[in-house]
């Protein structure tokens, strides 16, 4: 997600027009529009300031990369949405069967 998208999301969540957010920031509506459309790239500090002007705080955290996510996502994206649902139902059925498994003494 880029900075302009974050600004747009914060603005919409706050129910503000581009004009209203621009006024809070002391800038022009066209500047906000350019951020949101990606025509210009706001700096991290600008994004934080704009998000705060909409009443939110920007929380950034670092998460270790887990390659397993990418493999599973890649596999899933190669399926059609119908196959994804079928796969989900099959996984749930397998889970249920595993839960019903009885340990043989």
């Amino acid at each position, binding site marked *: *997600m880029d900075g302009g*998208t974050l600004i747009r*999301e914060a603005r*919409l*969540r706050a*129910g503000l027009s581009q004009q209203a957010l621009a006024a809070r920031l002391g800038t022009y509506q066209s500047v906000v529009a350019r951020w949101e459309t990606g025509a210009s790239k706001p700096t991290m500090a600008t994004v934080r300031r704009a998000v705060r002007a909409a009443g939110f705080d920007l929380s950034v955290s670092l*998460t270790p990369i*887990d390659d397993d*996510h*990418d493999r*599973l*996502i*890649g*596999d*899933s*994206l190669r*399926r059609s*949405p*119908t196959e*994804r*649902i079928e796969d*989900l*139902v099959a*996984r*749930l*059925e397998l*889970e*249920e069967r595993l839960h019903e498994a009885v340990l043989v003494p």
Partner: protein
Amino acid sequence: MTGFDPLAILRTLNEHEVRYVAIGGLAATLYGSPLTTGDLDICPAADSGNLERLAAALQALDAAIYTDRDPNGVPFVPDADFLGNAEVWNLVTRAGRLDVNFTPAGTGGYPDLVRDAVRFELDELEIPCASLRDVIRSKEAAGRERDRRALPTLRRLLAALEEQERSE
């Protein structure tokens, strides 16, 4: 068999012309999330006409109120007024678990979510689905442990989809 048949629930909602968007884990599945979810979450429009149609759909699905004590559900007769009295309905239907949430965490409900919603078509069944960004936004706001666990995968999925879009 889990008896979870999300497409049957969605088909019934469509047959009754309910206006809704799918959210939560199943919506994420449609986008390509490999995570497992055992229920369907929807956010319906809250106008009285839609509540009437939703009530009819829930009756057709034999919906009952889900509780931890009684997973088979506490019977109830859904009607529009009754449905409008709560923000969230945790239900069990003949096709599995269905959560109806009029204002999912971090969102302004149906009018907010429908703005960026997309439609998936599966075997002639159209599924209105909240944007993946909104699914993530709602999970971030809900902040439950299972939502927090899902977030890294969903953010990676969003990045993969954006990358895919850029390269097309």
